[in-house]
């Protein structure tokens, strides 16, 4: 089995071959092709889309690298696209920096690069610059990817958590927690087989649809690490409003529910990679929902709660039983409970 060695990171011919074979040939686009130290983007080509640049970066260190519904390559592309998209930006260009542990099978690396290329092509963005490092065994875990993204925001789009106000409606685009549960199950150390696929997807198309239907959308965020609960807490804090959720309205797949029951986890804190929370004014909520449900990534869209005046800064859930509980930020990771 051919593996990546330290010589692939040495700056010589082996490195050039690796970059050419694994990355450049599959990313294949005119801005990348000159292989200069930077990609050069004409400003005019950006300005046609809007009046503000959106710029974001994210690192991906998922274990395992491949999991049901995705892999680190797809995740690295979709994750950064989503960070641009929820700000109302049209995603255009990505960079890709790879830190590779020596000994990584070459075909696995190639598979991840192809996965990135495919996800980028599907999303209509180009990966235009990058970097490769190979580190000693143990200095990283198999493969770390960092993607940086550039997008452009239309002039009329103004989004921010602080714009949420009482009466606004909280929407999500589908069932929650699939990604977090899929990753935990795929790690195998909990010895649980769960038929759950990651929800990993690029959401910019859905966002565009939503913004057309609900132009006064206040705020959007992709509910990644920390889950929907964390996003809602950030909104409640920034807007100094309360948020009230209905437990019965929170959409969950049966296997995810069962998975959380067995492990004592709360699905509101599970990570998602293709789910967003949107806060929309009440008079646009119905149109926003209908528009989301008309998009392949929003078929399961629903309303989970609303912004309220009372208890500013707090997220409160009306439980299935009729009681209330606070949905707070977690201190650290969720840990499975003993009994």
């Amino acid at each position, binding site marked *: 089995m051919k593996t990546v060695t330290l010589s692939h990171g040495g700056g010589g011919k082996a490195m050039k071959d690796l970059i050419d074979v694994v990355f450049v040939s599959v990313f294949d686009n005119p801005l990348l092709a000159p292989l200069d130290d930077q990609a050069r983007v004409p400003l005019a080509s950006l300005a046609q889309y809007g009046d503000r640049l959106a710029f974001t970066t994210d690192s991906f260190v998922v274990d395992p690298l491949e999991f049901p519904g995705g892999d680190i390559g797809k995740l690295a592309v979709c994750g950064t696209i989503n960070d641009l998209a929820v700000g109302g930006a049209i995603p255009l260009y990505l960079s890709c920096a790879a830190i590779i542990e020596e000994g990584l099978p070459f075909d696995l690396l190639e598979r991840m690069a192809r996965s990135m290329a495919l996800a980028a092509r599907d999303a209509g963005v180009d990966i235009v610059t990058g970097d490769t490092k190979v580190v000693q065994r143990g200095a990283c875990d198999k493969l770390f990817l960092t993607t940086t993204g550039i997008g452009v925001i239309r002039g009329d789009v103004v989004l921010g958590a602080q714009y949420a106000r009482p009466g606004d409606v909280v929407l999500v685009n589908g069932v929650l927690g699939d990604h977090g549960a899929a990753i935990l199950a795929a790690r195998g150390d909990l010895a649980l087989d769960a038929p759950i696929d990651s929800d990993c997807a690029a959401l910019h198309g859905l966002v565009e649809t939503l913004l057309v239907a609900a132009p006064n959308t206040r705020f959007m965020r992709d509910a990644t690490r920390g889950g929907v609960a964390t996003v809602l807490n950030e909104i409640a804090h920034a807007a100094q409003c309360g948020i009230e959720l209905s437990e019965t309205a929170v959409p969950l797949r049966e296997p995810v529910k069962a998975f959380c029951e067995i492990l004592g986890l709360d699905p509101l804190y599970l990570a998602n990679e293709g789910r967003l929370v949107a806060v929309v004014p009440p008079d646009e909520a119905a149109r926003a929902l209908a528009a989301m449900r008309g998009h392949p990534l929003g078929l399961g869209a629903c309303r989970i709660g609303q912004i309220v005046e009372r208890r500013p800064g707090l997220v*409160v859930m009306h439980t299935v*039983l009729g009681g209330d*509980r606070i949905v707070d930020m977690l201190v650290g990771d969720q*840990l499975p409970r003993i009994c």
Partner: protein
Amino acid sequence: MKYVDEFRDRDKAAALLHAIEAVTEEIRPAKALQIMEVCGGHTHAIFRYGIEAMLPDAVELVHGPGCPVCVLPMGRVDDCVAIATQPGVILVTFGDAMRVPGSQGSLMQAKANGADIRMVYSPTDALAIARNNPEREVVFFGLGFETTMPSTALTVLEAERDGISNFSVFCNHITIVPTLKTILDSPDLRIDGFVGPGHVSMVIGSAPYEFIARQYRKPLVISGFEPLDLLQSVWMVLRQIADGRAEIENQYARVVASGGNAAAQRAIDAVYEPREHFEWRGLGSIDHSGVRFREAYARFDAERRFVVPGVRVTDPAACQCGEVLKGALKPQQCRVFGTDCTPETPMGALMVSSEGACAAYYRYAAKTV
């Protein structure tokens, strides 16, 4: 989810709450009735479903000492860290023990400093790690009441049968009955009845609680963990109070047999013997409240296999976990609640685990829902 949703039915909950209100009016208590749910799993469910605020004002829930992670004293955490940091050791633990603070930090911090600490969901996973790493010493952090005691015991029996010599257990298993007696004997006690543990009772049955009814004249109802279980159990306790009865009743008959689980009891008897006394965080030393390995299984006892400091670390003076555990104070009445003691920097045991009463109050209720 079948067999789960049925126990979370809103209409049935409303009917039970109505019955609870009716029986409370029938009792007409001069001051609020205090019912202690002993088990941390019950505390968790009570907060998760917002049950406490649904009850009449005249019924208060007191969150008892049944969270094994919460009552683990700092000295034992220090001993565990000392074992984990010895060369060649893999320490294997349940997830929620990772954050419990010792005087020198938690297992989470020890892991960050380089100790090989792994989280599992079952002691048999720890044994598998021992099989796969014959050159390493694998130590399982044995924690919990009679709920988890049999699985640790059976794992030790399996290790013995298969001749696995690099496996041992740092045994912190504890038993709830002596601690209930201590609580009942305490002068500041104001408990009117108990919701008894479900999983523990599945193992030990209902007979060990009889003294609570006979000697102390307090009702106890063994309860399941779903919200309707808890509401029904609260109603059953109140019904006993209204009738002037003090009995041990079993609401959780679908799981708990009155004699418990004989096979699990045999495994416990085979492997463990009572300790003279065991330290509980917040409650101090309680006679016969912990178990250790019998002589025949001494080689699986990490305390005898490794040098541990074994130093008793007293609880911080400001910490009032003991009063909260006994029901003398509500969590938010503790002098350090939410100030010096928070889930980020827990001072007392009850703030550490998600099952700890204070952590639950802080997380779900403290900010006055």
